[in-house]
């Protein structure tokens, strides 16, 4: 019974990691940028969700607004920061991204205060039981939300013109251009989708914790980097699998390894161990 719950809780955490990290891997796959500021957009999504819900009383409206605003913000980050740096060594974009992330966290602290914000009325407080397994409605929302978002993303990538254009651009931008694919547009759409996913993750985490804080992106900022490496950089399916696996490993680590290892270090012990055996990541990079 304990193990069923541990696995379940691991999957819930893992699905949160997945929704954040998949966006990061989309950006990396296309542009080879380690987009640390992604976690700042995640936080922005969470703030918008809470503030608009409190103002209008409608959580769905707030989530919609968060994904749209953050999606556009992501495109702006690309246009204003990354695009001019594409022909520079990769660490330039990485450091710029870290700088932007610091700016974002500080702006949230200054604008919204250091204490964090909560929903005026707690969302999804019910408890759901399926046979012997019970979980909070918020947990269920996290799981279902992640499945819906990632399935949607999968369909988008497999079935739509954008998906084809994206994959073609990732494989060979020059070739994609010669087939008439607007690779610049692909980049913007890519940033929109990745950032909207981050915002959705932020909204789900806000509901889950009933708390959004300026620093809530810190842990996702580095942990999702570990996840996309484990997943084989740029490999969307691999990222998903790595996120879920890490969630479960952390769940067990928290209980059984807590005496000698910090939970946040578990991800990296796992990462380093995997890289020593499989330098290309758990799942082959593209």
């Amino acid at each position, binding site marked *: 019974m304990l193990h069923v719950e541990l696995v379940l809780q691991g999957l*819930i955490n893992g699905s949160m990691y997945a929704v954040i990290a998949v966006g990061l891997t989309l950006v990396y796959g296309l542009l080879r940028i380690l987009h640390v500021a992604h976690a700042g957009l995640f936080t922005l999504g969470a703030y918008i969700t809470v503030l608009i819900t409190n103002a209008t009383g409608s959580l769905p409206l707030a989530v919609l607004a968060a994904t749209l605003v953050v999606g556009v913000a992501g495109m702006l980050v690309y246009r204003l920061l990354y695009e001019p740096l594409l022909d520079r060594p990769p660490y330039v974009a990485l450091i710029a991204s870290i700088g932007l992330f610091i700016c974002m966290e500080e702006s949230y602290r200054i604008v919204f205060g*250091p*204490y*964090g914000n*909560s929903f005026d009325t707690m969302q999804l407080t019910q408890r759901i039981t399926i046979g012997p397994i019970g979980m909070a409605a918020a947990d269920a929302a996290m799981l279902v939300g992640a499945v819906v978002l990632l399935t949607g993303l999968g369909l988008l990538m497999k079935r739509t013109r954008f998906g084809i254009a994206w994959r073609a651009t990732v494989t060979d931008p020059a070739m994609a251009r010669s087939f008439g694919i607007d690779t610049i547009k692909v980049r913007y759409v890519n940033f929109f989708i990745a950032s909207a996913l981050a915002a959705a993750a932020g909204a789900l985490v806000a509901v889950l*914790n009933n708390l959004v804080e300026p620093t*809530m992106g810190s842990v996702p900022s580095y942990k999702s980097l570990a996840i996309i490496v484990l997943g084989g950089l740029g490999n969307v399916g691999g990222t998903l699998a790595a996120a879920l696996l890490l969630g479960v490993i952390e769940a067990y680590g928290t*209980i059984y390894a*807590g005496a000698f290892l910090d*939970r946040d270090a578990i991800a990296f012990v796992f990462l380093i161990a995997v890289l020593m055996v499989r330098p290309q990541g758990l799942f082959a990079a593209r």
Partner: protein
Amino acid sequence: MRRILPLLALAVLWLMPGTAPAQDVVKIGFHAPLTGFAAADGKSARQGAELAVAQANAAGGIAGKKIELVVYDDEGKPENTIPLANKLIGQDKVAVVVSGGYSGPTRAAAPVLQRAGIPYLSAYAIHPDITRAGDFIFRTGMMGEVQGRAGAKLVADLLKKKKVVIVAVNNDFGQALTAGFKEVAPKFGIEILKEHTFAMPDRQFGPLVAQVKASDPEVIYAPGYFFNAGPLVAQLRAAGVEATIIGQEGYDSQRFIEIAGKASEGVIVTTSLDRDSTSPATRAFIDEYEKAFKDRVDMVAASGNAAATVAIAALKKAGTDPKAIRDAIRAGSFDTAIGTLSFNNLGEVKKAVQVQVVKDANFHRFAIIDDLQFLAPPEK
């Protein structure tokens, strides 16, 4: 070159020195983490201290001189706090310093102030080494171990419960509280079923909750901060865990109740601030704070206020000679927002522990543990 100009402008802006008022003032130094991971506590501590200074100034200051609080951001970093303490001593020429910071920065500053012979009051940092730096160093907050002991007494004597699971934040605060709790637990016949830790940034406790549920304790002793405790308590209750949850001064913020919602009802915390106190000092603090900052009080604000209050009272009594201030603190008894404080030989505070319970979305008095012998902090 034109591209660099904005950078230069920024640099110039940054370098602009602060202008200290030239009039005759008495300066109290203050540092707290205003940025970084502990910024929330930094802000509360600062507001608490500022309120004490404003009130004292409104009441005429010290012998006609205004009090100025010289505030620096320690960023939670020990190494930064050493130059900062030296700056407070050498350049700002403060008479006394209050720490609104965590243990790391406070431990770093204490020897500096001791060597310079400037009295130093730590508002809520818990590490035992702070006061060991010397006779100029005082602590108005409770040591972690002392509060941990109070927690054990609460569980056994007041609640009459035995089976405990400990879930502690993984830092010096959590470690010290756990150590204090475990130190006296055998004496009270408390059985510790399991002990777990979580990291300060953790907000999702699913696996821990599952494990706690499996252990089926009567009491969960869970040292942490409001930002951990809010989600933790909500998740424990959502999972159907009914055990009594014991928190500490880290929970003592209205934010905890906002985050945990209904789940916070019945949570009991050991802290320094008694919301139902009839003491004029406490009432005045609570009312004035909420008026001045449009926010509810919390333990950190009360502690920052209390430490500054002690500093001001000592200045009033002894003037600006550091040794006289030290002696005044050592010998005196101070009426503050967190009760009447006096100090032992080591500079540790002697005071009762407030036990508060969340009821109808507010903290209320549950009990007061005032067995000062049991709570006595170390003298060495």
